[in-house]
């Protein structure tokens, strides 16, 4: 045991947990504070009166009573974004290239996972499975989704990106857009030919739809906190993956090689690092994370179609830029912030603007943040300024 612990870098296991806790609690607290102050300020104005007339609650207590649910939802989606964003940021770190097709890697993960579960359902093992078996099946689906997505990511890199590695920057980017489009329609084609439909719904099994509820008395207002098992699964799975990734990158030999290649590819190759292999591994790891994120996303939102990758992909990219592209801690922070911001906007925008603009603007919220970040802090929250400007 002692022998084993000596090889295990405990610090790198604990550090990411601390980071994640700090990031989640910190961003959630800041955003909750902002929204509550905003609610207090607007309570006596027309915005507050409109809500009183409509739902007969004051703006402040409406905001407060919804807050726990919003924070939990935001964190759930935030961790999914973080897992996708890490794929972007790792590839960018190594190749300085936006892997546009990463969103489709994510979609392939979602489809493979869901199809595995649907297959298990037709075998009849899903219904009536014990809780333990349900988790085992879900883990199996996640594993297969990860393998498929990881394998696809490596293949795409080999076929479409490797021949273009020394071409001008826009050439691989254009090829990546092509891969993204091709994969979208390939998913649609395969699904259409094999199942006759391309909107798939994840089967319900296990206790994933249950909710754990609790009550919190805070002065006069009682807060009902409900968290679905799904959300817990998503968060726990994402946290585990992120810890593993952090360990891989910061405490293993392969991780050292990845970091070396991302610092200076030529020097790394002079040091005896097989650059091609490291790039493949980077794509593999990004693909594994993206595939798992795909199935987690499907678990959370139940319904998938071949184009689901597009918006999560763009948002995860935004998260990566927000955190500072190429910086893995930054991607985590960016994902969490973006998930929270988006959920806050989706839930409160309608009330705070008296119905003029609602959750339909949720999807373009990410773009506004992206543009704002690029204007005011192009290196991102945690990135060093490494010549982002031309």
């Amino acid at each position, binding site marked *: 045991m002692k022998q084993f612990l000596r090889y295990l870098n405990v610090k790198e296991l604990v550090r990411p947990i601390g980071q994640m806790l700090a990031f989640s609690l910190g961003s959630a607290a800041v955003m909750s504070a902002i929204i509550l102050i905003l609610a207090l300020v607007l309570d006596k104005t027309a915005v507050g009166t409109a809500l009183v007339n409509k739902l007969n609650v004051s703006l402040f207590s409406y905001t407060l009573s919804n807050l726990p649910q919003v924070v939990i939802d935001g964190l759930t989606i935030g961790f999914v974004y973080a897992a996708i964003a890490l794929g972007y940021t790792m590839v960018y770190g190594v190749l300085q*290239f*936006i892997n546009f097709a990463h969103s489709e890697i994510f979609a392939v993960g979602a489809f493979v996972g869901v199809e595995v579960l649907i297959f298990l359902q037709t075998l009849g093992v899903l219904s009536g499975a014990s809780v333990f078996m349900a988790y085992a099946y879900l883990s199996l689906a996640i594993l297969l989704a990860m393998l498929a997505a990881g394998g696809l990511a490596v293949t795409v890199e080999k076929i*479409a990106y490797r*021949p*273009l590695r020394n*071409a*001008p*920057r*826009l*050439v*691989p*980017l*254009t*090829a990546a*857009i*092509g*891969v*993204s*489009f*091709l*994969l*979208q*329609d*390939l998913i*649609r*084609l395969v699904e*259409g*030919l094999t199942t*006759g439909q*391309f909107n798939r719904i994840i089967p319900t099994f296990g206790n994933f739809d249950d909710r754990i509820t609790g009550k919190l008395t805070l002065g006069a207002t009682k807060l009902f906190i409900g968290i679905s098992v799904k959300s817990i699964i998503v968060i726990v799975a994402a946290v585990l993956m992120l810890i593993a990734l952090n360990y891989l990158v910061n405490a293993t030999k392969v991780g050292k090689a990845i970091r070396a290649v991302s610092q200076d590819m030529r020097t790394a190759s002079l040091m005896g690092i097989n650059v091609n292999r490291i790039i493949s591994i980077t794509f593999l790891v990004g693909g594994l994370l993206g595939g798992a994120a795909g199935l987690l996303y499907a678990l959370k939102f139940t319904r998938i179609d071949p184009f689901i990758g*597009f918006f999560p992909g*763009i948002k995860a*990219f935004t998260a990566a*830029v927000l955190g500072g592209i190429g910086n893995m801690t930054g991607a985590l922070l960016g994902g969490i912030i973006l998930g929270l911001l988006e959920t806050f906007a989706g839930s409160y925008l309608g009330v705070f603007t008296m*119905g*003029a*603009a609602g959750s*339909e*603007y949720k*999807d*373009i919220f*990410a*773009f*506004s943040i*992206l*543009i704002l970040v*690029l*204007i005011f802090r*192009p290196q991102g929250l945690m990135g060093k300024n490494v010549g*982002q*400007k*031309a």
Partner: protein
Amino acid sequence: MAATSFKEVFDKLNQGLVGYVVILLHVVAGSYLVYSQPRSNLAFLVFISSLLSLYFFRADNRFKILVGMLLALVIIPVIGVRNIFYLEVIFQISVFAALSLGLNIVVGFTGLLNLGYVAFYAVGAYLWAFFGSQQFYVLNYAPGTQPPDLPFLLPGDAFYLFLLVAVIIAAITGILLGLPVMRLKGDYLAIVTLGFGEVIRVLANNLDKPINLTNGPQGITPIQRPTMPEWVVDLFNSLFGGVIGHEVKLADMYNVMFYFFALLVIIAIIFVTKRLDDSKIGRAWTAVREDEIAAVAQGIPIVRMKLLAFAVGASFAGLMGVLLAASRTFISPESFNFMQSIGVLSMVILGGIGSIPGVILGAAVLTILNLQVLQGFSLYLNDLRQSDAVIPVINFAWKDLSTQLDPAKYQKLLFGLILIIMMIFRPEGLIPAKRRKRDVSMDETK
């Protein structure tokens, strides 16, 4: 090797009077085929490819211009009115050619990848859609609840004014969008423009409340067209009525008119591009594309130059937007999705970044693939499905083929494949730009 020897053979053939003979034969044969077989896709391909021989074969420039004008101004309208589907294809080709040429200024000359180009197209289209329809009086009604018989805000002839207004507004939009991101590396610009394209689409989708600016997902209709004098229809009838074989109606003439407008825009863009390309600005653009740091060192104001390219490209898209709104009399947010942007980009890349004839060829090829080949293939598969035919070796009955296999719906697959294959095997495009050709060969010797 094969390519060079082919080129040598072609050059050997392409001398003296051969060019004249081939061009004339091709044009005449194509016109005859399309005229005698108005339903055949193949005949149309032969006809439209005569533009290729016009470009590739050597002949006196005056002769080429004459034949080109004859084709564009007489033969195409006559054949188009005779079979309105061809006119639609040709109109779409010219619209996409204009859009691709506009995007080509941004991507080809300055090297800025714009993934949200249709956003400017949408700006132009919605501009005329708002002012050229009854939308101004619908501001306070939810979509679908407005009373009938509302007046139009402006007369249809204000269209001409709005061609100019759209150019200005789209250029301003381009500058406003470009300002924050022009200092950044190219790939950031790509993502931001993508985002901007989606923002515009989502806004168009949702700005039916609190005040109804865009009528939401239902889109705006009817949008006015400029008036067409009676005598134009009569003149066309008296000149070509015999050849066409049926009475030419006002609607047909409108299609011809918008085709001419698109043609005018194309000529204008080509003119502007050529003039700019040889000017100080064009050289500055090329310098920015090739090496930004060197360009700065030369004293080129790169941000201003990039913004200028962005604005010029945007203004042409805005212009085409007005044209689209008027020609379709209906627009909805779905006409301006990401797919369209990528479609236009694929045309530029397929044809050859920075090359005017290449980009036009790319637009023609992709539009024809899209409208004729894919759809023709779909129809063919449908026919097979209805027949009792069986694939011999594997004993597969066509009847059992899934209805999901509908090639017309798989444009993304096609665009994606084209982008990947072109990037890997021929990044300079089908007809490479002259200057770029030199760059690429230099890269190879490195």
